[in-house]
């Protein structure tokens, strides 16, 4: 078993990931609402940070939170017509629904499954989030899904 990474002081975590979080949020909710969503993302991360048990996959973790915040932001404002162009994105399953399903998967597979099927991220971005190769990300997602199928049989 590989040793888990220690949890870094939040300042280091924040400095390391804030640019990527903002980039993801601008793409998902537009630059106008990205700033509020950015703040919400890191406040949620702060709330959960004390309960983390290790520092593995923090990038995937915070991007998952950002994805949740983006969904909430879009839901709140869905009736506005300006959002119709992104409307198709809104029906993807929220992490809340996917979370109990993927509970118990190895962390990397779980992150890959959630980012792929929860947030519809392309594999190159999942790879970046996991800090691995695109091939490894694809592998992790497909192994995770196979594991879930076996479990549901």
């Amino acid at each position, binding site marked *: 078993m590989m040793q888990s990474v220690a949890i870094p*002081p939040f300042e*280091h975590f924040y400095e390391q990931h804030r*640019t990527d979080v*903002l980039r993801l949020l601008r793409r998902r909710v537009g630059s106008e609402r990205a700033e509020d969503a950015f*703040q919400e993302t890191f406040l949620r991360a*702060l709330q959960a940070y004390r309960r983390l048990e290790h520092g593995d996959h923090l990038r995937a973790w915070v991007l998952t939170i950002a994805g949740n915040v983006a969904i909430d932001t879009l839901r709140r404002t869905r009736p506005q017509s300006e959002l119709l162009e992104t409307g198709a994105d809104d029906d993807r399953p929220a992490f809340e629904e996917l979370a109990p399903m993927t509970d118990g998967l190895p962390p990397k597979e779980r992150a890959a499954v959630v980012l792929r099927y929860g947030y519809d991220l392309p594999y190159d971005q999942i790879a970046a989030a996991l800090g691995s190769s695109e091939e490894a990300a694809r592998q992790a997602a497909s192994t995770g899904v196979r594991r879930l199928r076996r479990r549901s049989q």
Partner: protein
Amino acid sequence: MTVSPDLDRRFREAATTMGLVDMGFDVVDSPVGPLFVAASERGLAAISFDPEPDAQLERLARIAGPRVLRSPRSVDGARRELDQYFSGRRQAFDLTLDLRALPPFTVSVLQELARVPYGETTTYGALAARVGRPRAARAVGTVMNRNRIPIVLPCHRVVGSSGDLVGYAGGLDRKVKLLQLEGATL
């Protein structure tokens, strides 16, 4: 696509206001150079003459928890009193202190240290005697050397029994400067 200073500031303020920060820190300017200052909700926890935060954050996280964040607001109280001290308008600090994770002997020495008046000096031996360990002058010296909250806990007022300054974790120059500021006779 960088995070603007304004957005960054708003996040840090919100985090502090919501009580989500285990330890906030900032760098405070002073006549003895920039000071790294850290405070939790319990009180002032650290002052360092090394303003570079990176070296300190892991240590603070071990004391207070991993949510260590630069937060000017967290150290506002300390900044105000330090400014007053350095401009000669304050002789005693009214700050509550966070002395978590320090051994009992260290805490009792620091509590005695806090009673050494502005502008006066005492010796390592005298301080040892006051905590009931008259032969522990050397151990008191070690506590001074590792003092987490210099200036506010005035280890610069502790000198050798022959009156020589001995040493200072922040450098002897700073010890001299602090004592001169207080008008102590050297």
